[in-house]
């Protein structure tokens, strides 16, 4: 049957079993919106800014492993989406972005709402396409979904000129796709895996370092099994939180710039390190030269060969899909006659327990001023540790990561790589669409929340009972912390003046607002929000300590074991 390009787009999305499209209409996508209007197989979520559409689709994907889809118009629709696309790209999130383009004949003529979409987005997508012939449309969309979710996942953009959406051709959706230029590796090299098993069994001071790849590939269960059968300590990166249960005794906490003392010390002092779906980035290992000063054997499992030996030289590289590689590793381990050296392991755990004794996350909650860490701890208690937590970027993000103990994967949703302020609220929306019954809280600050505050309107329209935990210290806190520590207390433009009355603002959008000023009120307010207002969006404005800093801290350029601890100040 002959279908128009717009009809083909809709049919392809239906074939991919898309549930939601996050988007914003405009001139170049009107034919697509017209066809969208005529169907009811998937729903459209109208956001209030294209950036939020991409973030929502991104979180929909992060919290479910389904592919988030968004639809934006040409020109400003695309440029507004770029921040969202770059955010997803840095964290390897599978997504498909469909953008309108000016008609084919107008391309390059500086037409109204024209921009070079493929050019602008090229460095921040896994791949992108410009469709120049309606007969290529279906196969291009199929490729987009295939590329987005296979190998190291990532966002894929398909740019469709307006005239293409109104031309007709025969429609057939390909069942499978093969590309001679794209064949992601699945199984790891068995010789390398054998070497890894040997190395792991010979370790005296072993360490498991697991990143976001564990979450993305749904490998958490297999990782837990491996770690438990070895009895080795585990640390997670910011992106990996929930990949290993935070309440487990083998877990040392998050590592990195704001990691725990025990995690960073164990990372620096181990003799065999196995990195699983992690990439040794600058916020994780600090100065690579300092990291390399200590000799240790490194095993690195990753689906992306270019992540291996990029910042740190490794001894046993294993390229493959994590669940497959971990399965084989487990099998060989169980078949092996060797066991970890019990004496060495006991001594290593004794050392780790000494480091734990530093209690690097302790803080003091007085009677007068609310400490931000306290709010996160109470939130953990009130939600029974079972909520989906989204965050924005800054101090509150680190406190959320440090004090909310994630036991399950896909519960911690934040922008780790790009560090995008303003993701928190649209992330919470995306999570709720993917998990319609879930408890969702957005931990944010008064700086970040204002970067996508307009989405309070979308949340109202779709009745999303998100709980916004605004840790309001009237400062861009992380900027202020760096200015205090590294720029002689000169707080250049980090004080946020003329803040809105967030309670009234929430009410103006039709939500519930609360202002919490005293430590004693924190827990009762949270309980009220999560019980009495279970079905409402509640904006909780917590006035918190203006001088609180995030500790421990590894200053930029310093080594992982050169931490500044709260007690030292």
């Amino acid at each position, binding site marked *: 049957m002959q279908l128009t390009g717009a009809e083909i787009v809709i049919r392809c999305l239906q074939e991919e079993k898309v549930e939601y499209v996050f988007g914003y209409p405009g001139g170049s996508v009107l034919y697509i919106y017209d066809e969208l209007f005529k169907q009811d197989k998937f729903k459209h979520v109208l956001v209030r800014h294209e950036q939020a559409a991409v973030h929502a689709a991104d979180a929909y994907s992060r919290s479910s492993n389904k592919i988030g889809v968004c639809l934006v118009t040409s020109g400003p629709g695309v440029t507004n989406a770029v921040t969202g696309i770059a955010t997803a790209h840095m964290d390897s999130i599978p997504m498909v972005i469909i953008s309108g383009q000016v008609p084919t004949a107008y391309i390059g003529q500086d037409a109204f709402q024209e921009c070079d979409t*493929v*050019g602008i987005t*090229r*460095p921040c997508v*896994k*791949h992108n396409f*410009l469709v*120049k012939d309606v007969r290529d449309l279906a196969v291009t969309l199929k490729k987009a979904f295939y*590329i987005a979710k296979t190998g190291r996942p990532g966002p894929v953009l398909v740019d469709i000129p307006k005239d293409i959406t109104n031309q007709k051709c025969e429609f057939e959706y390909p069942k499978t796709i093969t*590309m*001679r*230029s*794209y064949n992601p590796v699945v199984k790891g090299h068995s010789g390398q895996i054998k070497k890894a098993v040997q190395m792991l069994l010979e370790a005296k001071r072993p360490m498991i370092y697991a990143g976001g790849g564990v979450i993305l590939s749904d490998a958490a269960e297999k990782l837990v099994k491996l770690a438990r059968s070895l009895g080795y300590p585990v640390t997670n990166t910011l992106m990996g939180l929930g990949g290993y249960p935070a309440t487990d005794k083998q877990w040392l906490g998050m590592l990195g710039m704001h990691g725990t003392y025990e995690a960073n010390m164990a990372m620096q002092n181990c003799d065999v390190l196995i990195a699983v779906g992690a990439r040794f980035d600058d916020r994780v290992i600090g100065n690579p030269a300092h990291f390399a000063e200590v000799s240790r054997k490194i095993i690195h499992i990753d689906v*992306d*060969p*270019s992540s291996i*030996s*990029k910042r740190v*030289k490794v001894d046993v590289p294993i390229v493959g899909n994590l669940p497959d590689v971990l399965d084989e590793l487990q099998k060989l381990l169980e078949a092996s006659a060797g066991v970890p050296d019990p004496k060495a392991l006991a001594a290593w755990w004794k050392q780790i327990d000494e480091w734990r004794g530093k209690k690097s996350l302790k803080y003091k909650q007085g009677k007068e001023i609310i400490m931000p860490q306290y709010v996160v701890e109470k939130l953990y208690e009130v939600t029974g540790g079972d909520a989906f937590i989204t965050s924005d970027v800054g101090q509150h993000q680190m406190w959320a990561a440090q004090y909310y103990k994630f036991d399950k994967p896909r519960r911690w949703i934040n922008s780790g790589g790009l560090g995008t302020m303003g993701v928190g609220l649209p992330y919470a929306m995306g999570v709720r669409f993917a998990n319609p019954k879930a408890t969702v809280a957005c931990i944010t600050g008064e700086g970040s929340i204002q970067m996508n505050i307009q989405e309070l309107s979308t949340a109202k329209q779709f009745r999303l009972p998100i709980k916004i935990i605004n840790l309001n210290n009237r400062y861009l806190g992380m900027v202020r912390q760096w200015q205090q520590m590294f720029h002689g207390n000169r707080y250049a433009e980090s004080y946020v003046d003329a803040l809105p009355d967030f309670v009234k603002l929430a009410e103006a959008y039709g939500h519930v607002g609360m202002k919490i000023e005293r430590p004693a009120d924190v827990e009762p307010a949270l309980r009220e929000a999560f019980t009495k207002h279970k079905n409402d969006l509640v904006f909780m404005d917590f006035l918190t300590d203006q001088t609180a800093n995030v500790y421990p801290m590894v200053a930029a350029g310093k080594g992982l074991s050169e931490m500044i601890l709260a007690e030292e100040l």
Partner: protein
Amino acid sequence: MRHIISILIENEAGALSRVSGLFSARAFNIESLTVAPTEDASLSRMTIVSTGSDDVIEQITKQLNKLIDVVKVVDLSEAAHIERELMLVKVRAAGKDREEMKRIADIFRGRIIDVTDSTYVIELTGNGSKLDAFLEAIDRSLILETVRTGVSGIGRGDRILKV
């Protein structure tokens, strides 16, 4: 170290910018880049000359392989290979210089492919250092214009880069 990297890439619009964009975004160095379709018109072959430590070259090949449109990548300089570059030089060739220019072109096995009463265009192929040597050998003040294609390379013997 200097490396010659050969790439087979889908001959699609924008393929070149994906490669050149990768080099600039990751601060990799490009000395020269040549590209043209192969005997199979759906594929283009690119030759990139780059310099960098072994780690950098390893990243370059890995990152190139990661591009969705790239079918194959090979570092030609890892084994026996041939490289050639084409140069066209327009020189002043009048009076006593005319004979001398012809003589040097002959020594370098260059061909004169355009002649006026005061100029020659000389065509020269070889590796980069031969072309450099030619420019050194002639009187600099006589050079009016030069254009070089950049290096193309191919493996020797049984080393074949094909889909």
